[in-house]
Each structure stands twice: as C-alpha cells, then as structure tokens.
C-alpha cells in the first residue's frame, strides 16, 4: 500500500472501506500501459515509438535483437554479408501468417520494395524510407534466399532491420493500402483481436506461431492468452493503474514515482540502460558560445551529479562525450569536465563573459523540470540562465535550421541510438550539416573520420576512427554533456520471464504469469 505519509489521503478522512479492488477475473493476460495509442497498424506507414512497440508484438522482422541487444536472425534462418554493398538472407521455412498464408521470400522482397521505392504505397512513399539509408533493391536469389543491394556501403544495415516488420503481400492485395492501416496480417506471436481506437489494442495468442528466433531461449508460441496495450496518457493515471492492478507493465515511469511503486504490494521497478543521449546543445555560431572556453566553462559549471542523484534518483549514467558506454566503439579514456565552479568562473572571465549575462535554455514541456534545474545550477556562476518552454512542433524544426536558431542560446534535447552504433548518432548530430546538428558544430577532422568510418569494412579500424572522433568532440565541447538515462518500467510482480530492453521494445512473446 502507498506509504502512510500520504497525508493528503488520510487527511481527507476517507471512510476505511477495505480496498475492495474489483478483481476482474484474470485470464492469462498481460496489460501494458502506454502513453499513446498506435497511429496505424501498417508497419510501413509510421515513425512512432509506441506504434512500433505495439506492431512488433504482432509482426516479426527479418532480424531481431535479444535482451542484450545482440542482432539475431528471426524470419531469416541466417544472413551474411556478400560484399560491402550486398547482404544475403536465407528465409526460414514453415512460417505462416495469421491469415494462414505461407511466408515466402516474395513477401520479404515486397515488404522492402514497399518501404524503399517511391510511390510504392498507393502513390505515396513510406515515411520509413529514410531509415534504410542506401538500400536500393531487394532481389530474390531463389524461393528461399533474398539479397539486399545497397547503392553504397552501409555497415549498420543489420542493426536497422529489426525495426522493419515483414508484411503479407496477399493481405495488401486483399485490403488495399487503407485496409492495411487497421487490418494487419503479420506472422508474429500475437494476432489482432480488436483495436479500440484511442483506448487499447487487444491481441490474442497465435497458436500456429513458428516460434520466433531460435537464438533466444524458449522459442515457441506465446505463453499467455491475450496481450493488451492500453492507452493512458497521464503519468499519474498510468501509475495509479499499475498500483490498482489494472495494468501489469508501464513504461516511462517517472523517477519520482519509483519509491511509491517499489513500496507497493503488487508492483516493482525494473530499469535498463537506455540508448538516448541527453545533452544541452550550445549555439556554436553565436557569441559567447563560439568561444570554446565558454563551452568548457559551462560543462564545468553544471553539477550533473546533483541532478542525477536528486531528480533522476540515480537512474542515469553521466556522460563525458556523446556515446553510450554500451555502444560499439565507446571511447572510455576521454577526459571528464569535472564539476568545478571556480574553474568555470575563471574560464568565463578569461573569455570576457560579463556577470549577469542572460542565457536561455529552450526545451519542451516534458523536460521542463530538468531545464529549470540546469538553469538554476548554471546561474551559480553569476550568469542569469532561465528555461523557456516551447511546443515540440515548433522547437525541433527551429533548432534544425541555422537561420531560425540564430538568436537562440541553448537547447536541452536528446538523440536516440537504438542501433548502439556511432554511425546512427554521430553522423546526424555532429557531422557538418547533419540534420540533428542543432549546435552547428563543424570540424573537418571529425567529418573526415566519420565519412571514412561509414565505408570502413574492418570493424577494428572503424572503432579507432570513431574513438578519435569522440575525443575531438569532447575536447571541442559543442554541447554541455549530460547523461544517458535508464528506461524505468513499473512491472507487476506476477509478470515473469520479462525484462526491459535498451531499444525500449516491450516484447511479450516469452512472458509468463506467476
């Protein structure tokens, strides 16, 4: 039960009716509390994390990742890299779609053509085209093998495939593009029972499921009868549902609610290192941020440890640079900008930044508390820093356009690295002209290293290049480096054989109930 000290509730003097929680009859069913409903059930037609999580339980991909983020074959039995620009996949036999149709190499070719070719979706192009980079064509070598041909080398292709689910080409013919939005026919562990718009996606166990990836233990059909992804946008309501036993798993559990969930009888907290790097992007083109001493001073000024311990309750790993410790080619020997207020003031004075200079941290409402904490801590240097809340639809595009961000100072944001590979984060965010390069950082050496690494086949040499690039970035400090937060989940104690994954997928295939 929630701690006795919740004075508000007892002070209301609520009549002490025993908590007669209406125990709904519990079929073997797991409910997940989501912040948002799926936008569509057509895997090729969205760019949304919640939609991805929901669809992934009904549809499998050519490859998948295990709980430790290792890339393993799923629909493909095996895969190999033929040359720098070609990959080959052998299709597992005996896989059936929910409609009963057999899955063949033709379905895989159809799926990736539909994703990559322009106008392939009833005259419109799939919004996911960008996720597959230089993939040009998918060829059927024979009825059991498929080859993906790229326009130029792209080492992280396998890392991007787990997010592309295979569709049944006959289903598209049957229901058409519009029908695909609401009537999916996947080959995943669950099949769609009902989609109550805006409320819940209800899935039933697919008995004839081929079992999924053999490299992840306990292959075979799902072990629960139903999986329900329930939409509850408000954090407090989602937590309340977990505590009241109405949902079994909730994502995005605020750090402040961890103690309450841990203390509860029927739920516990589970954490996993996330893949999203948080940073305060400094407008390198605008004085005083064009002076590296100022950027370093700000890194020294911010007491990251205080925020991590007090606000995030220790659920984040402080970062010295851009990469996550779990990622490929992480450089552990980068020097740290230790919290040193005196040094920060000295550097600011040296750079000629007057006391009381006004600076603004732009961010969205979701990060308001963190932004205000950072502003307060940075203000200890004598600068007057404040946070400004913007609407997401306005802020992101504004900071991606050099002209529109000319007047801005700082931007608290983050960048996901689901592939845990520098190419998926350093290129868009730190290479000159990268679409996520809100800081406007431009360093010839870093650009050279990143471009070379893109096409370098030897993983060892590729890793060295990325490590040298990370060292330069940290030394130039285009950002205030923050942390890598853990993804925090509230999980009912009765849920077993499930733990959160870094790529924030909630895969209920192998879940069991106590």
């Amino acid at each position: 039960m929630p701690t006795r000290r919740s004075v508000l509730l007892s002070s209301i003097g609520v009549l002490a009716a025993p908590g007669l929680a209406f125990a709904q009859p519990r079929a073997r069913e797991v409910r997940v509390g989501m912040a948002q409903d799926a936008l569509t059930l057509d895997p090729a037609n969205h760019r949304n994390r919640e939609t991805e999580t929901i669809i992934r339980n009904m549809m499998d991909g050519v490859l998948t990742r295990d709980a430790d983020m290792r890339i393993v074959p799923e629909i493909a039995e095996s895969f190999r890299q033929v040359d720098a620009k070609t990959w080959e996949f052998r299709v597992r036999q005996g896989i059936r779609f929910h409609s009963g149709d057999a899955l063949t190499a033709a379905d895989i070719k159809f799926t990736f053509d539909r994703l990559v070719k322009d106008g392939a979706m009833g005259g419109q192009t799939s919004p996911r085209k960008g996720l597959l980079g230089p993939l040009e064509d998918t060829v059927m070598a024979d009825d059991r093998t498929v080859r993906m041909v790229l326009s130029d080398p792209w080492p992280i292709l396998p890392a991007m495939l787990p997010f592309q689910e295979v569709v049944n080409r006959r289903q598209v013919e049957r229901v058409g593009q519009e029908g695909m939005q609401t009537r999916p026919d996947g080959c995943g562990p669950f099949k769609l029972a009902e989609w109550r718009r805006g409320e819940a996606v209800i899935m039933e166990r697919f008995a004839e499921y081929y079992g999924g990836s053999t490299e992840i233990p306990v292959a075979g059909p799902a072990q629960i009868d139903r999986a329900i992804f329930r939409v509850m946008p408000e954090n407090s309501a989602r937590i309340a549902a977990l505590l009241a036993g109405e949902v079994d798993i909730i994502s995005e559990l605020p750090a402040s609610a961890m103690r309450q969930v841990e203390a509860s009888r029927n739920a516990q907290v589970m954490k996993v290192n996330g893949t999203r790097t948080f940073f305060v992007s400094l407008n390198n083109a605008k004085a005083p941020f064009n002076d590296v001493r100022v950027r370093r001073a700000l890194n020294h000024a911010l007491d990251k440890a205080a925020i991590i311990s007090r606000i995030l309750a220790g659920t984040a790993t402080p970062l010295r640079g851009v990469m996550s410790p779990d990622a490929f080619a992480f450089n552990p020997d980068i020097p740290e900008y230790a919290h040193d207020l005196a040094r920060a003031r000295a550097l600011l004075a040296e750079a000629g930044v007057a006391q009381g200079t006004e600076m603004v941290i732009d961010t969205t409402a979701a990060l308001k508390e963190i932004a205000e904490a950072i502003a307060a801590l940075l203000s200890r240097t004598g600068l007057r820093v404040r946070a400004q809340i913007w609407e997401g639809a306005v802020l992101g595009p504004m900071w991606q356009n050099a002209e529109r961000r000319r007047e801005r100072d700082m931007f608290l944001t983050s960048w996901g690295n689901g592939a845990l590979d520098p190419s998926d984060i350093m290129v868009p965010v730190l290479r000159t002209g990268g679409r996520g390069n809100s800081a406007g950082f431009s360093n010839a050496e870093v650009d050279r290293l990143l471009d070379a690494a893109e096409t370098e086949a030897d993983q060892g040499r590729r890793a060295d290049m990325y490590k040298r690039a990370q060292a330069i970035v940290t030394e130039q400090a285009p950002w205030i480096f923050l942390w890598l937060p853990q993804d925090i989940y509230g999980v009912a104690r009765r849920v077993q054989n499930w733990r959160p994954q870094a790529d924030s997928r909630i895969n209920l295939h192998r879940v069991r109930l106590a």
Partner: protein
Amino acid sequence: MSVSRLLERLLQTLPVLLGVSLIVFLMITLTPGDPVEIMLADSRATPEQAAQLRADLGLDRPLPERFLVFLGNALTGDFGISFFHRRPVWDVIAERLPATIELTLAAILLAIAVAIPLGVIAAVKRDTWIDRTLTAVSLFGVSLPGFWFGILLILLFAVQLGIFPVGGRTSFDLEVTRVTGFLVLDSIIAGRADALLAALRHLALPAITLGLPTAALLARVVRSSMAEVLTSDYVLFAEAKGLSHRRVLLRHALKNALIPVVTVAAIETGSLLGGNMIVETVFGWPGLGRLVVESIFARNYPLVQAAVLLYAVTYVMLNFTADLLYTALNPKVRL
C-alpha cells in the same frame, strides 16, 4: 415553430460555420511548425523526400486554393486524409466521437441531477445557512482545475479504495456488439448487465470531474430562477388554493423555474463537448477531445479542421434545440 422561422435560423448558422472554418484554417496553417518536418522528425529523409511528402499532402499549393478545396470537399463530406493516421479524417473522427458524446451526456445528466435539488433547496431556504453552504459547495465545483480534481479522484477512489477503475471506457474481458457506439446503450441492447455495470463504473469518475463545474453553474441558475418564481403571485395563489406545499413547489414553481435552466443546460452541453480534452487525457478516455489536442500539437491540419467544424455544427444545433425547448416549455412564447 413556423417554417420561415426555421429557415431563418438555419440561414443564420451558415455564416457561423463559414467563420469557424475560416478561423480554424487560418489559425492552424499560420501556426509555426510544419507537419512534414514533424513527421520526418528524426528520420534520414532527404529534402526531396520532404518535398515529395509535402506534395502528397497537398501542402505545396497556395493558401486560398487549399481553403477552397477544403470547403468544397467539406460540403461533400470529404475531409481529406489525416496526416498521421493515413486514413480518411472522417473515419478517424467517427471512431472517437461516440466516446466523447457518451461522456458529455453522462456529465450533463449528472450535472442536472445534482443542480436541480441543490438549486431548489438553496432557493427555498434562501439566505439561511443552508443556502450559503449549498452555494459554497456548488461553487466548490467551479473553482477546481479539472485535471487536479480528476487525479485526486483517481488516487482516492481507484487506487486507495478500488471502487472505481482508473480510466478507459470498459473492462477488457467484456465483449459487447457495437450498435450505437455508446457502451451504455449497446450493453442495454445486448441485455448484458455486467457490461452495463462495467460501462457505468468507468463513466463515473470522468463524468463527475467533467460535470461538476457545470453542476455548479446550473445550480446557481436554478437557485436564482427558483427564488424569483417563489416570490411570484401564482405561487402565492396556488398556496392560497390549499395545494400542498410540496405540490406547489414541485409542480407549479419548478416547471416555470426550469425553463431558463433547460436552455442554459443545452448551451452548456456544447461547451462541455468542446471542453473535455483535459478530462479525456487524465482518464485515458478515447474521445475526440484528446484526439483534437494531439492533432493540433502534431499540426494534423485536416483532422483539426474537420473536428472543429463538427464542434461548430454541434454548438449551432444545441443552440437551436435550446430555442426549441424554450418555446416548447413556455406556452406564452408561441412562435
């Protein structure tokens, strides 16, 4: 209601609908933030892909043309494709509409059921401590931010006492065939008592949160209207005829006192319909309100335009019904 009066009323609504669609069109298209940029937020889309998507969605054409296209289609009931759901806007709205209407009706009925007794007692016992306490209690309703009160109710009745569910429209192990889309009605049609109970239990907290401010407003209208009627000659005359106090109160006084209440209730239903976004968000209620707010933040133009037009039409219809009710209840005003 003579036909000419009917036509005149309908003609009056056209400028309103035109005005509303113009405002919403201008408001959302002039708002900074471009849906295409949002849709391709952190993808690797090249500028050509962005331009292609913009053309697909028809965003590259000049403003006046887009507005006329919107109006033309709206007349034929085609509201275009929702950017993010990639499905006809009308389908997306139609799926979420019953939930919003059911919640709004539950809220307004609850408000009326609370407001009339509260208002009558306050009027009969005017200027006594009962009147002042009831007025304070009813004002209590209008003085609370909806989301705060909603979360409080959830923590109290759902978590602590477990009497009511935290949110959503019904429990998942119940399957009711969809006839009207209104769960309460469908449960009754299907004769399923368990489904009806589940639907009502899920409706309770959101309806209370949404309905309370309106209950406060209506209680005040009932109080002042009833107080006025009680000082009228015909109430004195009715008592002089020897009718029982209760009969005078409930038959003679209440019938006249409720005339203004009904019209206010009809108009309030309109504002409730358009104002339940916050409650729908807090209770995870799959209504249109929440969808519209999410669509504005995502700059989903076609959906917002269609939804706002729908609200305007409903408002105009409710205003119209308010007039009809006023004349029906009020023999003196025969149009």
